[in-house]
């Protein structure tokens, strides 16, 4: 059992809902990444999602685009992202880390070398925004051999028949994209999410996480009522990006993560 399965089992057994927090590796500086992961884990994040910077983040809204640009200016690549996970693993063997990004950096490294590197670094799951399961067979089997989950996205536009297919080909958890739009968009509709998550849960035993456009502890609590875990990204990235000094940024995201977790627990 990998860290993701262990974590979701723990949550299920305690009747708790999970908090998944996202930052981009190397944003605002490379030195900030491991401390930021540590603070989020200490403040109650159950799963850590680490964005791999890419030049053309076509599914991301302005906040994560800018964070990706800042990270690229800092020279952060897929390899350096994995290095940060490996450093984090020296102090934390428990909290799952999921990489999220686009396909081309993985292709450039090579599927097999990537799987080896990710596995040795302590990565537990992978979300590739522009890789639907139809194109994912080879990567999936490579990842299975190193026990890394390929986490699939389900969108509001995904028809029920296709949800069934996604549910059987994904692993780790299913990621429901709560809005038609890019990350950090503004038009979250909780009752809509509730209906869709309920229909997903009918066809799968995998945990269902919900993300895109969840920005406040209140919204996180509302979504946590209907899902197994809540993903918060853009709001954290904005907090990191707007702080004037690293110490302040870390304090800010620690506080924000705690507030999200408290709110989810109280729901």
């Amino acid at each position, binding site marked *: 059992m990998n860290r993701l399965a262990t974590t979701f089992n723990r949550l299920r057994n305690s009747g708790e809902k999970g908090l998944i927090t996202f930052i981009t590796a190397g944003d605002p500086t490379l030195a900030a990444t491991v401390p930021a992961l540590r603070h989020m884990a200490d403040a109650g994040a159950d799963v850590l999602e680490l964005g791999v910077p*890419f*030049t*053309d*983040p*076509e*599914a*991301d*809204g302005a906040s994560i*685009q800018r964070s990706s*640009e800042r990270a*690229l200016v800092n020279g952060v*690549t*897929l*390899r350096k992202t994995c290095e940060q996970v490996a450093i984090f693993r020296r102090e934390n063997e428990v909290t799952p880390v999921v990489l999220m990004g*686009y*396909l*081309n*950096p*993985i*292709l*450039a*490294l090579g599927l097999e070398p990537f799987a080896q590197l990710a596995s040795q670094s302590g990565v537990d799951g992978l979300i590739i*925004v*522009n*890789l*639907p399961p*139809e*194109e994912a067979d080879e990567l999936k089997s490579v990842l299975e051999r190193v026990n890394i989950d390929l986490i*699939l*996205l*389900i*969108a*509001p*536009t*995904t*028809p029920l028949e*296709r949800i069934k297919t*996604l549910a059987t080909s994904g692993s780790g958890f299913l990621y429901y*994209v709560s809005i*038609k*739009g*890019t990350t950090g*968009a503004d038009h979250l509709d909780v009752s809509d999410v509730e209906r869709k998550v309920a229909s997903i849960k009918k066809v799968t035993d995998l945990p269902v996480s919900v993300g895109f456009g969840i920005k406040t502890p209140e919204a996180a609590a509302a979504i946590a009522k209907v899902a197994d875990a809540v993903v918060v990204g853009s709001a954290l990235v904005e907090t990191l990006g707007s702080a004037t000094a690293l110490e302040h940024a870390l304090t800010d995201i620690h506080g924000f993560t705690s507030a999200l977790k408290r709110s989810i627990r109280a729901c």
Partner: protein
Amino acid sequence: MFLRRKGDNELPDSTGHFGPYGGRFVAETLMSALDELTRVYQDALDDPTFKAEFKTDLERYVGRPSPLYEAKRFAATVGKARIFLKREDLNHTGAHKINNTIGQALLASRMGKRRIIAETGAGQHGVATATVAARLGAECTVYMGSKDIERQKPNVYRMKMLGAHVQSVDSGSKTLKDAMNEAMRDWVTNIDTTHYIIGSVAGPHPYPVMVRDFQSVIGEECREQCLEQIGQLPDALVACVGGGSNAIGLFYPFLNDINVEMIGVEAGGEGMHTTRHAAPLSGGTPGVLHGANTYLLADEDGLILEPHSISAGLDYPGVGPEHAYLKDTGRVRYETVTDEEALQAFRLLSECEGIVPALESAHALAYATKKSELCDVEDVIVVNLSGRGDKDLESVARLDGVSL
């Protein structure tokens, strides 16, 4: 007739692959819209009404067929071969782009989508999209890099005249690829109401095959015109390749004519010995961008490099996946031409023939001049004159130190 449902042994396969290239690499939100578009397109191919509407629009609105013109003075100045120009510059809106936007506008109507978006580099596709949107009475937003807005001002103003909203894109290299990123973000957000008219044979399936089919009218006409006017098929076809829609449109109907040589001309920018070019087939590697597996300009970490070309329409780090396939099979040869060579051809065609070509098409002309030097007398070269150069006059004048 060029619009027909394809057989099982024809490419792309049912999942949009040309050998290892093409496919559908997009966010999940877009998958159902791409399925719908594929279905509507396939149904349209079986519908005589659709084909008749498309044909009528091309004749009466676009002005097809476009002439095949023998450029005798130009040919005599540069070498020995006979050079013919397929005059896509004479189409309504001044380029081949309208062939595709007419077809996709008909599909948008069939899907009941009342909002149209597009990306544009040189502005030719943006103008062609704004044009069909005006005709449909549809709301239209065109995404354009801020660098391209600066160098293609006449087309920006034209789009506004046509009622389109031109959205400046300031991210990344501020050119075509960034405009495409932004258009994809818009599409993901407004998927229920909006059809995205991609302007080239790039992007996820079904765009590469659909745009190729609409643009194949160029090659179909050209093949007939060659037989009628010259009494033979051409020895060589030459077309510029950015995304590659004018090239594939010319080449596709000739693919089985094995004696017809085909050359796609990429933008060599400041030279292939530098990093300042836009030639992924000649100087790139396979990878995934904007929905397809194809040749790209990318670094060893898989990050996309900023391309460079004097021509905004060729200033793109990727290329249509069918070109990637045709390169690997060797059926089409891909060459490069520098900014400087393209500019010389731009001036030479203007002076010799009274035709001002688009800077994009000038790349094809420049290669034809090099090839003609090595040809036998009476060899026939057809160059796709994909667009007219009015939009480029201001940038070329600026290089001459003249402010218009």
